[in-house]
């Protein structure tokens, strides 16, 4: 089987489940997998930022602590060169298949934290223009890996790329989202990167206003 990241041939460890056919859910070789760094405890219980001890981080305190509109964010990986390269090829160059690198871990972390919520997944949308440019929404393909219904309840108004903005620009930016349909059940917002948490909270505030009780987030990377 070929690794979908480095294209080299690799052997999967043999289990009963892949004795006859390779396990398509896990198409990454060990070399590439080991370059990704998992977030490890202690982390901020709210946003998953790596900390010295498991206390609320300063950012989350300024978002309002217990009155914060976001219930919790779970991230999986920390930001490093290897994951940056993968994201770059996946999201910006448009290699759609590379999203599968994260499928297995995303499903595992979901099961660990959010399994019993009976929530729906809402991917953070792209603007129409950006969607046309990229051809796919990376958050949507991540949400597609989860075993719960996906709802397209948000749209986004075109603005400059998040990654090109400074921190203050991001935090003070206007809410770029609009709610297009009502949701009742708990919501898990899905996105690729949690940087300042502003994007997620913009989306969460609309949902909260519309009466959603609990808003969670599942993001791939905590940078």
């Amino acid at each position, binding site marked *: 089987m*070929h690794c979908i990241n480095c*294209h080299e041939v690799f052997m999967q460890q043999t289990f009963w489940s892949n004795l006859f056919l390779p396990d398509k859910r896990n198409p990454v070789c060990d070399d590439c997998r080991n370059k990704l760094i998992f977030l490890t405890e202690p982390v901020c219980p709210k946003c998953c930022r790596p900390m010295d001890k498991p206390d609320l981080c300063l950012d989350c305190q300024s978002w309002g602590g217990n009155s914060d509109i976001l219930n919790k964010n779970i991230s999986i990986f920390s930001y490093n060169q290897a994951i940056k390269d993968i994201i770059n*090829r996946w999201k910006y*160059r*448009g*290699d*759609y*298949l590379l999203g599968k690198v994260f499928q297995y871990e995303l499903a595992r972390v979901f099961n660990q934290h959010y399994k019993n919520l009976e929530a729906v997944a809402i991917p953070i949308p792209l603007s129409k223009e950006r969607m046309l440019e990229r*051809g*796919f929404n990376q958050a949507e393909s991540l949400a597609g890996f989860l075993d719960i219904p996906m709802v397209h309840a948000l749209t986004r108004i075109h603005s400059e790329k998040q990654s090109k903005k400074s921190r203050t620009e991001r935090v003070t930016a206007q809410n770029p989202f609009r709610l297009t349909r009502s949701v009742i059940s708990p919501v898990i917002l899905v996105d690729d990167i949690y940087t300042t948490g502003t994007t997620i909270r913009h989306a969460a505030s609309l949902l909260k206003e519309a009466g959603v009780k609990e808003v969670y987030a599942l993001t791939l990377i905590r940078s």
Partner: protein
Amino acid sequence: MNKFISSIHDYFSPDLSWIPQQTIPQVTHVEKPLSHLLSGKLFLPYELPEESLSFINAHFTKVPAIEKHWWGYRCRRCGNQKKYLFAYMPCGDQGKKCLYCRKCIVMGRVSECTPLYLFVPSVQWEKVKEACVWKGRLTSFQADAAEKINEVMAKGSARLLVWAVCGAGKTEMIFPGLATAFAQGKRVCLATPRTDVVRELLPRFESAFPNVKIQALFGDSPVKQADAQFILATTHQLLRFARAFDVMVIDEVDAFPYHADVSLPFATRRAAKETAGIIYLTATPRPKQLKEIDSKKLPTVFVPRRFHGHPLPVPSFVGCFNLRSSLKQERLPEKVKAWLDKRGVVTRQLLIFVPTISDAALVERLLHATFSSITAVHASDPDRKEKIELFRNKVYEVLVTTTILERGVTFPSVDVIILDSGHTVFDQAALVQIAGRAGRSPTDPHGEVVFFHQGKTDAMEGAVEMIKRMNKRGRKIVDALH
């Protein structure tokens, strides 16, 4: 039935008949620079310059980017036909799926629903009379090859392999041919697999051909748009071209990754015009090329002597059977120590090749006591360029290196040793190239080359045989001259 056979044939040698026939376009005087800029290239829809849409509508051809065959798909840009390097992605709102090529994705995504735009006219380039101002003289060995190269470049529709030993002065040999090509108003590309070679060649060509517009293209080159008559490029850059060049020179045709990546020969074939003259330059042909030479399919010219007329240094073998175990115990093997002692104090610098990065660091540490000025380099060393420059300026006496310095670099006066020459990274071509680092200067045409090994390999014997064969060939010609 015929169709079936031709489709099998197509699998092994890609059919390029989807490229439109080359015609002479009706271009106004104002549009001429534009036609130079756009000619012979492949564009994705969003890469087309918006301000020249009328020109594009009038002259461009739109073709599907991916071919479908019964045996699978082929990307027309990079020639990829491996199934695992294609994937489907959603396309549009209707849940349709669309195939795209993963191999050349860094150059922008090519898919079933994005066409390629081509403009492949025979644009007239400037006829530059007496373009070459190089005043040096070619040796009789070089002159012979230069004449053959000149012929191929002038006539076109031919291929030629120039098998010239390391240090033969390959670049100078193509000067007369280039001058002829420019006088005929031809467009020329010199492509090589290695970026540092492109960087090194640019100033040499600029000073030899001051009246010809030259551009260098590589991964992060400052120049992106290619509208020059003479293009220096890495072979990867050829993935953007189609039927662009009347003369194509491929330097170091045996170097990585050209021989390992099938899309590079594919791109080269497409970038050259059907009537192009193609020249391959190499010091160490791969088995594939040797086969073509032996079966007389590929005309070949030999340059068996270096420009200074001396034979190549022949490597000597030193068996050193505890080499690995000594290194593991952080000791220098006895045989190596003995050789260094015997060598004594000499004016030559010493170049030490080792198979791996960790070996490089270890050997540097072990030799620190013996040599005061020693350093090590490898591919991902951030100070690589500076260290090589300092070694060239004789600041360092000894340089320990991995195979990155096997070709393309010239140090005037060095002895070369390899530790563990039986390691798999040292294939025959690499060993010949490494041996070719010694004795390159006319003032010191000899140099010692020693392979320390733990058992001879085919590659080592093959390398020595290749060197001896070239020396013999050279001697014959020298004898015939006297």
